[in-house]
């Protein structure tokens, strides 16, 4: 790793950028930020059966809601990074990702409207980051970023890629592309951040061990949310796949394939024993850890 490292105690802020790839992202934001673009290809409803369009409309309304509601997760992440005075570019990119979620909600809203729906949602109250009372602020931030970016956003990026590849409707495909452009960063941010903290982690081997222990629970918790097939899920028809609806019967497979082949080797690159954590994952602590 090159560039300035933040002080270990988090009490000071350096004016230097991190000079990692995140600094490049920061400069791109400064130089070339552009607002959300509309999909350039108009939606042609004659390409699809009305009942399929209706399902797609409902799905994109759900996407609009989840994108909007997830903005606060990145805001909370930025607050955690502010608390330990991470470099300015790291904090700025985190806030950019929060903004991305709002832009994604706007993209989804345009899709809903194009499909003939009313783009209006009733969001849940903003999510607040839960306190991790058993660890210090830097480790708490690492947990948030690993769970939010290295795991959940990496699975999201994989599924978006799958949807992009399977969708044949040009309008929906373009919407997927717009989302995927940002989701790439949202997933990679976690691994860039770990690269930025590699020296710090080298000096704190106990945090690596703690993170591996945390991952046992985190994997199980995330799997219940992202990796389980909903009751009553049915495989997609060809017409549903063509308009970009996700196959809910594949949620377990896509989750496991992505975690095992992408997330785990990515985390292991930083000396975090994610493979063993995955094998030993569970909502309850293992017997040897039980009180």
């Amino acid at each position, binding site marked *: 790793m090159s560039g300035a490292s933040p002080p270990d105690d988090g009490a000071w802020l350096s004016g230097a950028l991190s000079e990692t790839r995140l600094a490049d992202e920061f400069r791109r934001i400064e130089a070339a930020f552009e607002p959300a673009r509309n999909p350039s290809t108009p939606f042609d409803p004659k390409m699809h059966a009305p009942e399929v369009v209706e399902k797609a409309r*409902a*799905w994109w309304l*759900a996407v609009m809601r*989840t994108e909007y509601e*997830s903005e606060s*997760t*990145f805001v909370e992440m930025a607050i955690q990074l502010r608390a330990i005075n991470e470099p300015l570019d790291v904090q700025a990119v985190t806030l950019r*990702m929060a903004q991305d*979620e709002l832009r994604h909600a706007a993209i989804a809203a345009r899709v809903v409207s194009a499909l003939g729906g009313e783009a209006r949602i009733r969001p849940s109250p903003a*999510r607040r980051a*839960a306190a*991790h*009372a*058993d660890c210090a602020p830097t480790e708490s931030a690492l947990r948030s970023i*690993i*769970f*939010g*970016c290295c*795991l*959940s956003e*990496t*699975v*999201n*990026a*994989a599924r978006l*890629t*799958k*949807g992009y*590849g*399977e969708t044949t409707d040009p309008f929906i495909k373009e919407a997927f592309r717009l*989302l995927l452009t940002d989701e*790439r960063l*949202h997933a*990679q941010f976690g*691994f860039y951040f770990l690269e930025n903290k590699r020296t710090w982690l080298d000096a704190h081997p106990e945090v690596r061990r703690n993170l591996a222990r945390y991952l046992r*629970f985190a994997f199980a918790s995330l799997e*219940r*949310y*992202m990796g*389980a*097939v*909903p009751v*009553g899920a049915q495989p997609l028809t060809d017409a549903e*796949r063509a308009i970009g609806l996700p196959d*809910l019967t594949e949620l377990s*497979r896509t989750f*496991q394939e*992505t975690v095992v*082949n*992408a*997330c785990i*080797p990515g*985390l292991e*690159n*930083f000396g975090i024993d994610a493979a063993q954590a995955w094998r030993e994952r569970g*909502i309850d*602590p293992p017997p040897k*850890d*039980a*009180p």
Partner: protein
Amino acid sequence: MRGMDDARTTPDGSMLPKYVRFARSLALVSGATIGLGIAVGSTVFTTEGCMSCTGVCGDYYKEPDASADHSANPDAEDAGEDGAPDAGIGGGPLPAPPLPEAWLA
């Protein structure tokens, strides 16, 4: 019918879906992996990650845990009034849950 993005191609007989390959390229974009790619001279990394993976990263594809029972989502009733769970396409980052009390001994 399988979608086109389920196409699996690997040089060693194992199989890796394209979408997993893309996710893997995002996760392995760190310096260590780039070094490996340069060393073998066959993996091209772009700002988007590894887009021409040849499987040189080693431990390449692992099958999902077929023994795991994920046939039903116990939280399905929380999926929202539109019936679409948050867990499919289009979700954002999820907040890290704190360890439950039982883990804090």
